[in-house]
């Protein structure tokens, strides 16, 4: 009897194509007559386009189209604000904005053509910081508006009364920087207009339906004239949702040339074209009793979305309020302002605003613990929200494994022995630090629904074909869906084929964001498989004459429930063929939708936006070289409460990947932006961690079995990135007694802080 794959280490169902080099990414597609596209970007952070001369470029042999803003539709695109053109017209608002697009018979010719385009720019004064953009009298970056892209303000309870009860009040400001998503596959699209005039788009994307909606709006086409197909996608991390212009430009060129067009960002272009995460300055004021109970919390955020705001309204929203739900709080106040600037746009990134605030909050708890003479673990425990609680913002927490997460990671790192080693001599000092985190599993705020649909078809050989519009960017959505269907239909996982998302054939789906796919897609798969199973049993009963309730599905066949010998009543292949024959040619095909019973927040931001909430804690040990300022993570343990681990192999993989992204954000990666220009938009100078720059990682799983999760599961791909930066900062403090509040923690900052401390100690 084949065992259920649920809960077992399950290799990715599409791994074979990946290890043999046969997985097809968008940049691998070659169509007959396909053209290669290149984009010319603004070198200026803010300028008026006086004149563009494309004659020489158009005259170059092999060049098929040279488009400017004048060739693009009038429609504006954007998530919250429609504010951006496919190609800039009249004004450019950031250095890197797309101005001219070329399609030619080869990549090199397209690149040659860009050099023949001359653009007469009139540079205009630019606003590089939120302070400058929000100053009295600052010019609006977008016509007719001031530079506030979004603002959130709320108060619950009485913060003043809370602070009045506090034994300790601590206020500090933290600065978080932008992180480039760094997926290994740069953005890529192939677009063509087929013989019927329909636009076909193969894209590296996290959401085919959001991509189609946006293409339709920006290109002023009916949705039904567009088909978007997801190709194997080489990572997304939030960067491939809807904020980049790559597929819009490829589609525009395909429409204008009538030929297939491939636009693959090179890495330099991807740094300019992709959104990096939202930089925020967060001021946090907490009041605690001497036992460590948080009695008041006040948050002030100033965030910089760059020239176009994309999804950053939602990102800032998360920073402003999500962490409040981790704790049993009564008095909170938050005020967050998102400002436009003439800098490259920021947007969605794994963790989605959580990383920023949790860096501040966990650093703050660590600091206050020391002042109060408490173990920070005790403060996390004392304040932790509990299963069954409704948080201050209305979130109904059905499960939490945070306590177990704290136990696991402190034990693994030997917290009790290692914390506070004050007797260290020598130039290299070690310290341990810890942080805790919470994340959503799905999010109703996307459209006041958060459902997903799965279609299961049973082929004539008794194997299942599964359609879902939720995208797999490498995190394993296809494997998860295969596991669920295999489990429910008791089939070997090899008998399940998940079809890649295609807007023509897949059921509608929001796509892969907000850690929602296992929650919503997983539930929909369970429902669809059970519907198929019911039909199979009914049909088997009809065929065999056995009562339906005496039948069951075991090992891919319908059998008598009570039979010892497991005699087969009907196998699935027979049933699939019989279904066709008995239903006038209709194969066994079911569709099921699951929409979480969550509640959209009200105008006061009160609601219950996700079916479940996942938790994590991380403990790290670092070594600080007090002479060079270098910080290295020597050990890391992340404990993830993902409800139920469908696939421990995948959970550990997600956790490890998130951990290294967090280490990168905290220690290694730093976008250098000077006067609005990205100066290090390449992998030689923007340094992602290599294998020798990070330790072998350890991680643990906590299964809190959420009552609303599919088999108890919650989201597991984002939570693990949240605690890393603060855990490292706290460990640095434990090692050498300096507190770094502005990321990244560079050697220069560590050395400067050590010197300042030395001076203060001797003063």
């Amino acid at each position, binding site marked *: 009897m084949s065992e259920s794959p649920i809960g077992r280490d399950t290799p990715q169902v599409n791994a074979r194509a990946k290890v043999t080099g046969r997985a097809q990414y968008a940049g691998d597609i070659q169509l007959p007559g396909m053209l290669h596209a290149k984009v010319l970007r603004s070198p200026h952070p803010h300028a008026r386009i006086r004149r563009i001369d494309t004659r020489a470029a158009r005259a170059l042999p092999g060049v098929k189209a040279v488009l400017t803003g004048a060739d693009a539709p009038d429609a504006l695109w954007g998530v919250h604000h429609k504010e951006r053109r496919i190609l800039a017209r009249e004004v450019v608002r950031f250095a890197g904005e797309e101005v001219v697009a070329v399609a030619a018979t080869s990549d090199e010719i397209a690149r*040659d053509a860009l050099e023949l385009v001359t653009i007469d720019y009139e540079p205009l004064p630019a606003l590089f910081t939120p302070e400058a953009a929000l100053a009295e009298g600052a010019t609006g970056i977008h016509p007719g508006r001031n530079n506030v892209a979004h603002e959130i303000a709320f108060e619950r309870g009485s913060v003043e009364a809370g602070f009045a009860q506090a034994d300790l009040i601590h206020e500090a400001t933290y600065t978080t920087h932008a992180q480039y998503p760094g997926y290994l596959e740069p953005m890529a699209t192939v677009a063509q207009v087929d013989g019927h005039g329909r636009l076909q788009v193969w894209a590296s994307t996290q959401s085919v339906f959001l991509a189609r909606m946006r293409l339709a709006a920006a290109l002023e086409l009916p949705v039904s004239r567009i088909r978007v197909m997801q190709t194997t996608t080489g990572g997304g991390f939030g960067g491939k949702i809807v904020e980049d212009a790559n597929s819009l430009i490829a589609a525009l060129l395909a429409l204008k040339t009538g030929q297939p067009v491939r636009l693959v960002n090179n890495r330099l272009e991807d740094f300019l074209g992709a959104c990096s995460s939202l930089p925020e300055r967060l001021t946090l004021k907490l009041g605690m009793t001497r036992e460590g109970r948080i009695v008041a919390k006040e948050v002030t955020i100033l965030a910089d979305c760059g020239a176009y705001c994309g999804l950053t309204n939602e990102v800032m929203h998360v920073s402003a309020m999500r962490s409040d739900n981790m704790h049993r709080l009564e008095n909170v106040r938050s005020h967050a302002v998102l400002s436009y600037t003439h800098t490259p746009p920021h947007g969605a990134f794994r963790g989605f605003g959580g990383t920023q605030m949790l860096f501040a909050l966990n650093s703050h708890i660590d600091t206050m613990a020391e002042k109060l003479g408490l173990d920070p673990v005790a403060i996390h425990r004392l304040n932790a929200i509990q299963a069954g609680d409704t948080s201050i913002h209305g979130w109904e927490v059905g499960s939490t494994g945070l306590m177990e997460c704290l136990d696991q990671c402190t034990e693994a790192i030997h917290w009790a022995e290692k914390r506070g080693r004050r007797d260290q001599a020598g130039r290299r000092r070690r310290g341990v630090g810890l942080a805790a985190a919470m994340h959503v599993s799905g999010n109703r705020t996307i459209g006041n629904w958060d459902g997903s649909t799965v279609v299961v078809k049973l082929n004539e050989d008794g194997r299942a074909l599964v359609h879902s519009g939720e995208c797999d960017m490498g995190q394993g959505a296809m494997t998860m869906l295969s596991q669920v269907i295999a489990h429910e239909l008791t089939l070997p996982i090899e008998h399940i084929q998940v079809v890649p998302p295609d807007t023509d054939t897949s059921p509608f789906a929001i796509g892969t964001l907000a850690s929602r796919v296992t929650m919503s897609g997983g539930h929909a798969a369970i429902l669809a498989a059970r519907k198929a199973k019911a039909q199979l049993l009914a049909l088997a009963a009809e065929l065999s004459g056995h009562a339906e309730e005496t039948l069951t599905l075991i090992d891919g066949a319908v059998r008598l429930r009570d039979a010892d010998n497991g005699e087969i009543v009907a196998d699935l292949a027979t049933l699939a063929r019989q279904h066709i024959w008995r239903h006038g040619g209709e194969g066994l095909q079911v569709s099921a939708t699951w929409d979480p019973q969550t509640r959209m927040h009200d105008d006061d931001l009160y609601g219950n936006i996700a079916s479940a909430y996942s938790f994590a804690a991380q403990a790290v040990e670092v070594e600080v070289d007090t002479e*060079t300022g270098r910080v290295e993570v020597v050990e890391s343990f992340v404990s993830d409460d993902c409800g139920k681990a469908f696939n421990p192999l995948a959970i550990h993989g997600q956790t490890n990947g998130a951990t290294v992204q967090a280490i*990168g954000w905290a220690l290694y990666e730093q976008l250098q932006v000077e006067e609005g220009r990205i100066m290090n938009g390449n992998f030689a*100078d923007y340094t992602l961690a290599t294998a020798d720059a990070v330790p072998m990682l350890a991680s643990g799983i906590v299964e809190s079995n959420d009552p609303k999760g599919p088999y108890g599961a919650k989201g597991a791909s984002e939570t693990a990135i949240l605690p890393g930066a603060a855990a490292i900062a706290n460990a640095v403090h434990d090692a050498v007694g300096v507190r770094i509040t502005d990321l990244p923690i560079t050697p220069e900052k560590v050395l400067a802080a050590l010197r300042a401390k030395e001076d203060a100690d001797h003063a």
Partner: protein
Amino acid sequence: MRDFDFLEPASAAEASRMLLDEPEESRLIAGGTALMLGMRQRMLSPRRLISLGRLEALRGIDFDAKEGLRIGALTRHAELAADPAVQTHYPMLASMAARVANPQVRNQGTLGGNLCYADPATDPPGCLMALDAQVVIQGPDGERRLTIEAFLVDYYTTALEPGELITEIRLPPPAEGDRGHYARHLRTAAEHRPLVNLAAWVRQRGHGCEAARLVVGASTVVPTRVPQAEAYLMAHPPSEATVDATAELIASGITPLSDARGSAAYRREMVRVIARRSLAHLFALPLE
């Protein structure tokens, strides 16, 4: 990259003639790892690439106890790192070559190409300078030899005249008492290029050093020897105090670069730290 002609001379003399045909428009290509980067970003756009790929005479490593080491200019970093003679007689050089860039670049990039590119943020030049290497240059008027000090002129600039190419690198024979240590310091563990490197070579006699060559690289425009530090080291028996003082002299004796990867002050400070650690390692002194 922009289009170009690819030429394949059969001898160094022919390569030299080809270079002279259109000196402004021609570049030599050996492994090509650095050149391709510049050309792909269109920062370099030669109209002619003259490949040294067929010049077998520029390959190979030969060691002779009297003559020292001859390294063909087309020797790849990985070949240098794996060569038994280099490992035995010039362990510092083998150790450096094993750490250049990354495995793929070590399998493709050549020592001659690396020297001709004269990128400050790289490893071989400083190490070779500490080992008193000379480059053998073939040109239209025959052959000449230059020390590394004379060969490296400035940021991305060498002493090569039109029509000249490096054919080999020569190292003097090792002697009893020679010790060397090559250190490269990365600003963070994830960076790819050294922020500072320090190549230290001494010839020990009894308790002291009869000769010393101390070279700072990566943080200076070209690798830089620090004579006052060398003199101090030769005048004082190795001790923690000597090492500290020498490291100070090294740090104060250079003019550090200042750029996005590190300010001059920070680089100088790192030079001091790495110098002290390297010398302590060289003399087997405790680091703390």
